[in-house]
């Protein structure tokens, strides 16, 4: 086992990884931008290196600066967290070439899953069900229109290389396809690495209405075995981005769960996956059927949901697997967990609301876990994503988890930045959410009902 880990990330996830690294008796090294110098992940680390200005390109996304920080501090391994460089195969290679241990899957696995069109075709060949869609990247609107006519409306339009819902849009006809295509192309150019003048790689897929978004957590062990650690239902979304996740999913039966877990293991085995990964699926709850969406080759934001029901520390397993430790993994999921993402955004329109935190009081108690990136006095800046904290509750049943969530949300006090805690409380009173019979359209229905 190596003796130190550099955490190439920020905010709540850097702090959460540092906690496990230190618990394992290893030295935790943080890297940070000028804007983040006062945040807990920097002060709690054993060592911290300033990378540069706030802009991600000059700090968290600068491969050379991160590698230099690792060398300067004598770090032996690098954990990328999620976002930033986590799914950047060149970064994974640069880490390995610098003689450091990369805590993540092989760069080849990142590349094969990172291109969504390639991943979809590969999964189809492996016998994993996929939605009807384009098998080649679509570069021009005329091609997109032809493809949509073949697939049939409504279609989901997304960037082949993007992630996190950025640039995604649903088109119901040729006119809305034009808008969705333009939006996705712009996102591909800005966030997806497409160069100026290069045609953006756009993917079209049959859109399933009233779908649930359910994903399977997998872990590829050092001996090549791939295990599935249950599912997370992520159907509570705004702007195609997750707000609340829970496990088990209230919308799938035992038989569908078995089929999804088996498919996720097959997906991992197809790319020789090592470490923590997530296989995202769309579920047609009425038909109790599913299709593969994409695989995220990293630790997921909502991983605490799985940790709460399995009792496993996924970051610890990522580290042990990266260190080449061979062991059998046993997990016996129990109870029900729900996670709420506490965003710095207004609870009505979900627009960003950064600012200085005047008051920050976290709930505590049985079955309550808070992963936060901030304390009172910190400033939530506009430079990064709006996630301030994740509240994860666990109970013996979904009812108990919901009751604990209501108490915890009411006890969570944040003043300063705008925050979506009132939305979380509203959700916990929403009959559709409480019934468990909801889908990805839930949040927009809640907003239309007003």
């Amino acid at each position, binding site marked *: 086992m190596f003796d130190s880990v550099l955490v190439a990330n920020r905010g709540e996830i850097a702090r959460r990884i540092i906690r496990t690294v230190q618990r394992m008796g290893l030295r935790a090294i943080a890297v940070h931008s000028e804007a983040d110098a006062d945040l807990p992940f920097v002060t709690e680390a054993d060592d911290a290196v300033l990378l540069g200005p706030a802009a991600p390109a000059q700090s968290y996304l600068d491969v050379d600066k991160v590698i230099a920080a690792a060398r300067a501090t004598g770090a032996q391994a690098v954990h990328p967290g999620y976002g930033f460089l986590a799914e950047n195969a060149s970064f994974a290679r640069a880490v390995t070439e610098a003689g450091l241990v990369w805590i993540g899957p092989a760069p080849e696995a990142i590349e094969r899953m990172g291109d969504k069109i390639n991943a979809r075709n590969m999964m189809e060949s492996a016998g994993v069900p996929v939605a009807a869609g384009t098998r080649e990247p679509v570069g021009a609107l005329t091609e997109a229109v032809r493809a949509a006519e073949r697939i049939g409306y409504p279609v989901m339009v997304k960037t082949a290389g993007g992630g996190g819902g950025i640039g995604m849009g649903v088109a119901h006809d040729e006119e809305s396809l034009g808008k969705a295509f333009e939006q996705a192309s712009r996102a591909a150019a800005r966030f997806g690495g497409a160069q100026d003048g290069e045609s953006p790689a756009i993917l079209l897929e049959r859109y399933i209405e009233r779908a649930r978004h359910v994903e399977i957590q997998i872990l590829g062990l050092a001996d090549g075995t791939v295990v599935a650690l249950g599912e997370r239902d992520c159907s509570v979304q705004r702007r195609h981005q997750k707000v609340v996740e829970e496990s088990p999913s209230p919308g799938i039966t035992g038989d569908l769960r078995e089929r999804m877990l088996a498919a996720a293991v097959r997906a991992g085995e197809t790319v020789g996956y090592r470490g923590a990964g997530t296989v995202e699926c769309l579920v047609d709850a009425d038909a109790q059927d599913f299709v593969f969406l994409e695989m995220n080759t990293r630790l997921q934001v909502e991983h605490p949901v799985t940790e709460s029901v399995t009792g496993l520390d996924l970051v610890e397993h990522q580290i042990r697997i990266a260190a080449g430790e061979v062991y059998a993994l046993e997990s016996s999921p129990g109870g029900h967990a729900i996670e709420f993402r506490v965003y710095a955004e207004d609870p009505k329109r979900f*627009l*960003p609301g950064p600012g200085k935190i005047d008051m920050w009081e976290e709930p505590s108690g049985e079955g309550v876990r808070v992963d936060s990136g901030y304390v009172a006095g910190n400033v939530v800046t*506009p430079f990064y994503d709006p996630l301030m904290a994740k509240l994860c509750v666990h109970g013996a049943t979904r009812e108990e988890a919901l009751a604990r969530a209501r108490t915890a949300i009411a006890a969570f006090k944040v003043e300063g930045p*705008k925050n979506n805690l009132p939305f979380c409380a509203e959700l916990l009173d929403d009959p559709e959410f409480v019934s468990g019979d909801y889908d990805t359209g839930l949040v927009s229905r809640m907003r239309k009902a007003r």
Partner: protein
Amino acid sequence: MAEVRAEMVANVWKIVVAEGDTVEEGDTLVILESMKMEIPVLAEDSGVVAQLKVAEGDVIQEGHLIAVIE
């Protein structure tokens, strides 16, 4: 005359109109970026862009004057 102000702390990502341009209600004046989200700032009235008080790359605070439409 209508003043258009920022609703949040943000970075000015793109200027869409210029001083002197005629705009219709609902036209995009500038696009802000905050927390990895693009936020278009729209004209609430039709008229002429009399003043444009921001430049691309500016970091502006909530309430900051963006433009004046006359």
